[in-house]
């Protein structure tokens, strides 16, 4: 058990998430206990409005937990300075990039920000790491293109490369497959799986592509109105967790194919 403990990258302890105003606390999900090991690909799924984004925002310190704690590499999130956190966790967000005039290389190189000097000069080591990130995501050919010239799928790969260049143990992606066609959805998730294998990083992403996630993830976090379950996809299927995901009036989960079907 103690040996196992060393490989835990992210852990939550009785985490309650939600929003707090002066007058009241609105809890969105409570008693969340998650353990993410090193070198795992984890998919976070749940219906709209169930609190996926709130959970990710809490894990990434954008908003505070109502109760409980988040540990990253065994250290409580509240004890991290913003710079330390930037070296432990990198993000791919749904926010559009503010300046599309950045070249792909420049954008990926910004991932080196926590390591560069006061004016942001890249050392040869930084440039090597950036180039490696471009190779890992198969976008070396786009290196000198401007971001406004890229398709959505290409841009997503660039953003993943930027997170890789940040050189952190944990990468968290918020809905990386939105706006993409079926092929590119599969491509991006497959790429994440490959990155986990190649680099040994832990990657957590939220997604609505439940059938793809079931096929590719090592582990899934399923948020249902009752509880938050973390397990391997095959166990989740046999326990019937996916059936509790959505209201039952329209779609049902088909265990044999691992996907949802519209009720006839």
């Amino acid at each position: 058990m103690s040996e196992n403990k060393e490989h835990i990258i992210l852990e939550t302890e009785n985490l309650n998430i939600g929003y707090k105003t002066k007058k009241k606390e609105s809890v969105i999900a409570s008693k969340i206990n998650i353990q993410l090991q090193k070198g795992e690909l984890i998919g976070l799924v749940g219906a709209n409005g169930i609190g996926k984004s709130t959970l990710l925002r809490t894990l990434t310190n954008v908003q505070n937990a109502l109760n409980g704690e988040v540990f990253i590499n065994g250290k409580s999130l509240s004890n991290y300075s913003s710079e330390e956190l930037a070296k432990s966790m990198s993000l791919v967000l749904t926010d559009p990039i503010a300046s599309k005039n950045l070249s792909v290389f420049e954008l990926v190189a910004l991932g080196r920000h926590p390591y560069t000097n006061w004016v942001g000069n890249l050392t040869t080591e930084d440039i090597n790491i950036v180039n490696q990130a471009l190779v890992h995501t198969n976008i070396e050919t786009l290196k000198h293109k401007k971001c406004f010239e890229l398709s959505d799928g290409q841009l997503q790969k660039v953003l993943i490369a930027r997170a890789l260049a940040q050189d952190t143990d944990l990468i968290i992606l918020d809905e990386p497959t939105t706006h993409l066609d079926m092929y590119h959805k599969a491509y991006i998730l497959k790429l994440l799986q490959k990155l986990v294998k190649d680099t040994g990083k832990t990657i957590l992403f939220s997604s609505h592509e439940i059938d793809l996630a079931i096929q590719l993830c090592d582990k899934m976090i399923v948020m249902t109105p009752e509880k938050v379950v973390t397990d391997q996809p095959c166990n989740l299927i046999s326990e019937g967790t996916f059936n509790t995901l959505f209201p039952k009036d329209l779609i049902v989960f088909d265990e044999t194919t691992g996907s949802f079907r519209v009720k006839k």
Partner: protein
Amino acid sequence: MPKTNTYTFSFIALILLLIICFFLNISLGSVSIPNWAIFKSFFGTLEHESWSYIIQDYRLPKALTAILVGSGLGISGLLMQTLFRNPLAGPFVLGISSGASLGVALVILGAGIFGGVFASLLISKWSIVIAASLGSFLVLLAVLVVSSRVKDTMAILIIGLMFGSITAAVVSVLSYFSSAEQLQQYIFWGFGSLGNLSWNELLIFFIIYCFGICLSIISIKGLNTLLLGENYAKSLGLNIKQSRFIIIIATSLLAGTITAFAGPIAFIGLAIPHITRQVFNTSNHKILLPAVFLFGAIIMLICDSIAQVPASDYTLPINAITSLIGAPVVIWLLVRKRKMIF
């Protein structure tokens, strides 16, 4: 990535252009002075005493002021456009210029209310400089207080615009009660002026300007990260509130002093960063900042040379010239490129 050294040629060309414009600016004026006399006057007094007076005490400070004003406004425009990630932002979006206008309006237009003796005391040049600085400083302070409470940077933009509307309204009310003479004086201030600065004033101007530039240089790394958007910048370990504070202070120092000493110079702050981006096709502030400095200085010198109306006795308001020359240039650039690069 376009390496820094691919821009070396452009930088050398710009520096040469700056030197040429500087000498051209000094050599032009209502009194024609031969070129050899201008070079000589830098190293000592000429036999022609009026010539050395014109050059050393009038044209030289004016050309230096033009360089400080152009570069300072350009850089503060660049800082604001990146901070607000909005190509329409300029140095005056925070209400700095309207604050200065209010200060000056209170002194010039309000002087009538205090009566004759005070009026002549109040309307000296220093009191206008102090009033403009105080006005922009107070508006800035209000913006800073608000920005420490507001999380959203775009809200600061709107709050700055609102402050501008309030001060503009106060100025209108004041002008309604003022005499024609006072109004004229206020309008003349609004034309902007690069001349009239003594060496002492120039020194004070330069010291504050340097502070602003230093703060801008410190912000280079943060500005580059902000190009990704605030949430990404935060995830990269950038202290958003602190960087925002430094950027706002830098802009206010630059735009505030410039407005205090040279009046509200329109257009330069908004346009220079865009013109620069057309030539230097990068978003890296390490390259943009010095490039904007050079472009700002050059264009301001050219505008000032035109405002002199060479070989005539007229001096046109610099504020009108910057817009008359600059606006078509930006329109032409954007129409030709069909793209607002940001």
